[in-house]
């Protein structure tokens, strides 16, 4: 599939790089002891350090360091045993120190990779340039007063991992797949909750276009996108804009842009920073961050299985289709649910029931997997009752619907509604005899070669049994009787 975009002067290649800010999962902030909890009142989760009071000093949170290393390992990246915190100096209302403590020349994590799969079945390896730790800024509210902005520093100092990709992405679809995959990995690792609505995961998207084979074009950076949809929409809008500008004889300026969700367009930021000159230098309040390879190895040993590995295992060991495996591994919760439901059972049948029936029902009910009225154990029990012949697949669907509705166990529903499958040869033979007796004309037609009618007899027998007859036995016995 070609990613080239058709313009008036020919085809254009899109080049995208992403900078993702992922909030580190931790109880307290990167350099202070105040809480990272979401939703507190204004300036409640703020210490004197976060408010940059005179003489306040940063002390680093060990868990945040560990989380960054873990994430680096999950991205198969180089972990730097020595890294340095720098100050990035600029003035902004929600940046109390007048600088952000970040990592510039020596980040904690170096180059890594992330593999994305697209809907056409292709997969692409996207390079990770680096991952570094830094402080989040506070929040400005601009719409509360006609001439004032209100500042809340609750987020000020919260630990972020900035994960920078190489400019390896070639389409909005790829960018969407990248952020989804990254989010999935972070959630598997437990290093970021990936909650985009709450701002735990935000992306800056660098976009440029060029004629295939030409050197890189000038890029723009669209900042602070907080949904997969907005990321993809903003890329399409920006690509279209850039091609139009260039084909119209204009020029693209390296600038920071914002995505306007109401118009679906990007626009240049009005508060254009004069020239960016961040005057990075090593933060003299901190020392180089060092740890041992042994420490990294310990973290590596405790790393959970990641979606790529799990997917391969599901295909190879469980015999799942790669589509099912992809669906079941996309979210860690899904994979855990599936593992629990399918352990010790027919993995394929469980996979099928999850991806078709359960997801279908959840979707219809507007529920997430976490809200599922059917537990993994309950789903497993249902599958057991199918495979041991207690109920037919047909009945199982009704039982499933009932389970979803009431949250009751499958066995209880079958018991109370008397849905047990009939596998008694005599009983089934009696029903078949009745069907034959009542449809003698059809029996004759069948015997005269109208094979298609076999299905009719199966259907009538099943109907007579209220769906409870064992379909395999019905088939077998019918064949004998109709000979």
């Amino acid at each position, binding site marked *: 599939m070609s990613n080239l975009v058709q313009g008036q002067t020919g085809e254009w290649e899109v080049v995208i790089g992403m900078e993702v800010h992922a909030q580190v999962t931790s109880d307290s902030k990167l350099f202070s002891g105040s809480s990272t909890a979401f939703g507190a009142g204004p300036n409640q989760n703020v210490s004197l350090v976060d408010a940059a009071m005179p003489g306040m000093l940063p002390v680093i949170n060990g868990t945040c360091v560990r989380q960054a290393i873990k994430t680096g390992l999950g991205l198969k990246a180089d972990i730097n045993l020595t890294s340095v915190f720098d100050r990035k100096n600029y003035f902004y209302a929600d940046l109390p120190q007048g600088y952000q403590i970040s990592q510039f020349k020596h980040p904690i994590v170096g180059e890594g990779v992330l593999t994305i799969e697209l809907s056409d079945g292709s997969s692409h390896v996207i390079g990770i340039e680096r991952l570094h730790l830094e402080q989040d800024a506070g929040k400005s509210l601009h719409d509360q007063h006609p001439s004032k*902005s209100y500042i809340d520093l609750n987020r000020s100092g919260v630990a972020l991992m900035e994960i920078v990709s190489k400019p390896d992405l070639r389409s909005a679809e790829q960018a969407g797949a990248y952020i989804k995959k990254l989010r999935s990995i972070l959630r598997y690792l437990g290093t970021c909750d990936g909650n985009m609505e709450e701002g735990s995961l935000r992306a800056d998207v660098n976009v440029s276009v060029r004629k295939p084979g030409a050197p890189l074009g000038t890029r723009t950076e669209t900042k602070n996108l907080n949904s997969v949809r907005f990321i993809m929409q903003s890329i399409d809008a920006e690509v279209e804009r850039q091609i139009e500008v260039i084909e119209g004889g204009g020029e693209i300026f390296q600038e920071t842009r914002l995505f306007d969700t109401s118009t679906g367009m990007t626009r240049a930021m009005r508060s254009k920073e004069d020239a960016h000159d961040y005057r990075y230098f090593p933060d003299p309040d901190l020392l180089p961050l060092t740890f041992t390879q042994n420490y990294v190895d310990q973290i590596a040993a405790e790393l959970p299985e990641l979606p790529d590995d799990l997917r391969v295992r599901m295909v190879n060991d469980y015999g799942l289709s790669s589509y099912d495996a992809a669906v079941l591994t996309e979210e860690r919760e899904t994979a855990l649910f599936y593992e629990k439901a399918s352990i010790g059972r027919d993995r394929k049948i469980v996979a099928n029931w999850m991806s078709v029936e359960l997801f279908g029902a959840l979707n219809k009910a507007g529920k997430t997997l976490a809200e599922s009225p059917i537990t993994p154990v309950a789903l497993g029990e249902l599958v057991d009752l199918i495979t041991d012949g207690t109920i037919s697949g047909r009945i199982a669907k009704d039982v499933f619907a009932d389970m979803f509705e009431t949250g009751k166990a499958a066995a209880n529903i079958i018991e109370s509604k008397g849905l047990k499958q009939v596998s008694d040869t005599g009983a089934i033979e009696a029903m078949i005899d009745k069907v034959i007796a009542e449809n003698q004309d059809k029996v004759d037609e069948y015997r005269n070669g109208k094979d298609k009618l076999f299905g009719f007899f199966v259907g009538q027998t099943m109907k007579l049994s209220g769906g409870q007859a064992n379909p395999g036995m019905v088939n077998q016995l019918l064949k004998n009787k109709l000979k």
Partner: protein
Amino acid sequence: MSVDNNTVKKIARLARIHVDEDRREALAGELNAILSWIEQLETVDTDNVEPLASVTGHSLPIRDDMVSDGNRQEQVIANAPETTSGFFVVPKVVE
């Protein structure tokens, strides 16, 4: 390396310090005097010398991840020139 009026304007802007136009010339002179005095460092051979950022011999100490601070909104905003319902207030920012 010499500082002119324009450079003074640029760095004053970076540092967010208003410098009156008629003061730039004099300031450029003062800064140049200091900078040219500083430039004697150029004569020191620093090839293969590692920069020294900190004199302490120890590595960065690490603290446990515990919520041990916060919930002191009153103290945080007590010294602010302008506040409203727990927020700091500044002239409107246009993004």
